[in-house]
């Protein structure tokens, strides 16, 4: 299946979550903070901390670590 990261098409082979998929592709930084523009990545890894929030299919603030990849998914990260 295929997913899109910031518009770039990437082949996704296994069923995993958005967070681990991006980390395996060296995308450690997932967003910049609202006030200080500081980089953030995954912290708790289990849906508790909301640090890994990304925009998925146009919907903001989705937790990368608990969102399963789907064919055609469009993911926006800020790094």
């Amino acid at each position, binding site marked *: 299946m295929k997913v899109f990261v910031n518009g770039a098409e990437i082949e996704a082979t*296994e069923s995993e979550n958005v967070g681990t998929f991006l980390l*395996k592709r060296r995308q450690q930084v997932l967003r910049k903070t609202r006030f200080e523009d500081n980089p953030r990545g995954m912290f708790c890894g289990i849906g508790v901390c*909301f*640090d890994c929030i990304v925009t998925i299919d146009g919907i903001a603030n989705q937790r990368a670590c608990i969102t399963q990849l789907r064919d055609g998914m469009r993911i926006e990260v800020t790094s």
Partner: protein
Amino acid sequence: MSRTIIIGGGPAGMSAAVEIARAGGDAIIIDSNPRLGGQYWRHGADAKFSHDGERFFALQDEISRHSEIEVRGGSQVWRASYHDGVASVWLNDGTSLASETLLIATGAYDRSLPFPGWDLPGSMTAGGAQALLKASGALLGRAVFVAGTGPFLLPVAASLVEAGVKVLGVLEANRVNGWINHLGAVDFSKMKDAARYFKILATAKVPIRIGYAIIEARGDGRVEEVVIAKVDRNFAVKPGSVEVHKCDAIATGWGFTPDLTLAHSLGVTTDIDVIDRSVVVHVDAFQETSQHGVFAAGESTGVGGVDLALIEGRVAGIAIAVQRGLISTMDAKNRSVGLAQERSRIRKFAQALLSVYKIREGWRSWLHPETIICRCEEVTFAQVRNVVHDLGASDVRTAKLLSRCGMGMCQGRVCGRIVADVVGAEIGRSATDDELRGIHNRPIAHPISLATLAKQGQ
């Protein structure tokens, strides 16, 4: 009577479901993870376990054989309530469920302590680092430090080594001498586990440093180096012991926080643990809470590990079967042989561990004025001090309202206890029991869309 609602598909929820099914009852297990197993048995699509997979498969097979047990994975409860003997839960897919019996098996998550740079990408919780690995073999970094306190640091470091990560050190802040003997004296199976972890770490020549902590992480946009130091019995830095090491990630863990969000919404009575002052669900001998028909098992009743969760889940499942009239109390007794004694033994062991691996107050000396306390709202230590000393906040709630600490997207799950302890220290008293309970008050447990809300209003 409606089928039992089980919130959480980890060891406690799974073992309860099996007991209910054996008694001829029906149940639905709800979990945010698409797969059963919870944090302990988190696994990917290929369902591979480095160890202890047998018990998971036995439970999963039995659950799948019983068609009366529905597993609804990838589903989150965003609201729960209890009225007139009926517990109701609302799911993020817009549906809701109600039942006279419900089990809280919501588990726990890593307890974190803040330090300069803990918000940098590459800094994760110990449980988070392991979750990535278990779910899909993803690595948090290539060269990492594992630090904090507690026996959980060992399996995390060992599994990272096995996955090919260079573990530069395991730092245990507490002065635990003869770690392995301590574990072995109480529980032989735990000693075997610990011996296995030590062997893996020794073979990989990983230094295990007792009485050390990560006091700072630094880097340009991500973790590039770490500052470690020897700490005293109160976790204060020993002068002259500071070292700086290159690394590309760190995993820190300071024990666990039971997830009580839904328990709080269901209005169950809670206790404050005498050792670490964490909030836990109060249960009776049958794992029933103060609300009739609402039961709790596993970490929500106090952190005790997988073996305790499995037993508490079984006790709860059997008690639910009795309450639903599926089996007699005599039958329940036969099904419960030995469970109460085993539960009591492991609880004592868990309390002993908690006192050895206690968080000591000196960690606050690691903070710099600009250190982030609340990650979501980017509130610094200086700002928290400011609302106490300049704005006159004299309790935790006022300090939160004035600083926005704990009022971001995670709703204080990460910083709630940290804020309570920091504010308490600044105003010169410990956080009260009610202030600690207030940390878990989240009427909306998870964000939902307005569309879902509108659907549920219909």
